């Protein structure tokens, strides 16, 4: 089984947006955005994904990436 990787930091760098700024714009806490950015999250709500895509002006595919495990 592979895993889903969140490439939020890449998009944030492209848009030159900080963690606090994005968290405020999306309407979630800094701590939760940090969990998401560091790939510690178990799931993401559609509403959160919509808000992030809206704020960063991108598609979900720009943020989410499926990666196969190297060991397999």
């Amino acid at each position, binding site marked *: 089984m592979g895993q889903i990787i969140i490439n939020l930091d890449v998009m944030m760098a492209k848009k030159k947006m900080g963690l606090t700024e994005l968290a405020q714009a999306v309407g*979630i806490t800094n701590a*939760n*955005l940090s*969990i*998401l950015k560091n790939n*510690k*999250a*178990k*799931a*993401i*709500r559609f509403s*959160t994904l919509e808000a992030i895509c809206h704020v960063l002006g991108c598609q979900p595919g720009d943020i989410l990436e499926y990666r196969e495990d190297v060991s397999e």
Partner: protein
Amino acid sequence: MKVFPFKPLTLLLNYLMLFLMFFAAGVLISLPLLVKGYINMDITYAMPNASKLYFYILAILYVSGVCAIIILNELRKLFKTCALDNPFIIQNVTSLMKICYMSLVIAIVYLTKIIVLNSFFTMIVVFVFLMATVFCYVLAQLFESAVLFKTENDLTI
């Protein structure tokens, strides 16, 4: 999110458990004297070999007393976490499992008393503590699932 609305009540229970723990410790310390006094009294007519069974009675009371103190301490911890609005933690599962094991020990100890020194109330004690064992085991499993659900929910952004 407010999980448990009766904060003063849980805190009160916490202090009650603490008081009972100290009371139980006091009883345990003075147990040899208490048992000796009880045996010397006339009310032991139902137990003709009571003086011979002195050490056996002392042993079961000590074992069940220590188990009861451990149970009270774990209950105190449980009530404390309830008062802090965060009861679904893995420590509470461990606490419930400890209560489960201690109840089982008490039930087994009193099961031997049914054979050695039977009375109707001993049977009730065994029944109650066996039920407590089963209840605590089921509650521990329930709490474990709740902890898993909560972790999953907390990590859903």
